[in-house]
């Protein structure tokens, strides 16, 4: 989980469809830069933001039961009800 803010801009991050060492390489739609996870975050390995880092956001990988026990007001992501990016003239 990473920040997607840089230089006052907000990036739309997605899978580039490429993998490296079985890990997906991400792309931002705004500049088509490539991003890859290397501590301490996502490093831009190609493109406009070359060598810049999007910092990792603290999170936990755990079971739902354990997470909810400590965070009973948690909202749960509903993939089926969620909207995906739609390309358009403004968002090619």
């Amino acid at each position, binding site marked *: 989980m990473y920040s*997607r*803010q840089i230089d006052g801009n907000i*990036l739309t991050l997605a899978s580039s*469809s490429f993998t490296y060492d079985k890990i997906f390489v991400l792309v931002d739609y705004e500049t088509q830069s490539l991003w890859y996870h290397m501590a301490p975050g996502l490093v831009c390995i*190609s493109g406009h933001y070359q060598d810049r880092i999007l910092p990792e956001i603290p999170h*936990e990988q755990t079971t*739902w039961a354990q997470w909810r026990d400590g*965070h009973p007001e948690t909202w749960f992501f509903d993939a089926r009800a969620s909207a*995906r990016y739609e390309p358009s003239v403004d968002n090619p």
Partner: protein
Amino acid sequence: MRGRILLVCCALTVVACSDNTIEFLGDSQFVDENDNRIVLTDMNGIDYDITHAVTHYGFAAQKFRGGAGWQRFWPFVGPRFSEPGDGDYPAPFDPMEVIGVELNGECRAYALADLDGIEIVDEVFGDAHVAVGW
């Protein structure tokens, strides 16, 4: 591909999909004959210059795989959630694995099964814009 010579072009794999469409999966890397740039090209013809990734970070060009095109993997940009008390809210002791986040006073969880290693959720927590993936 004018102006380039082929450096590596792994054999394209033709996959017959269940809906009888044909899908090409392969890996293409080229070096520009003018300035020796190393370029990844996806199946939609979009080029990515990975020369810096190779020369500065030590990436091995031949280890990049895939390239079906990012149009196949639209991220979630309008995430929806269920809240405690909603009918579809998971049972308290559901054993599924999740990524849990507490940020700017908001708590959210994402089932790993929904992220599946490839899905990205472009999210907002208060004024913090983040990407969730696994």
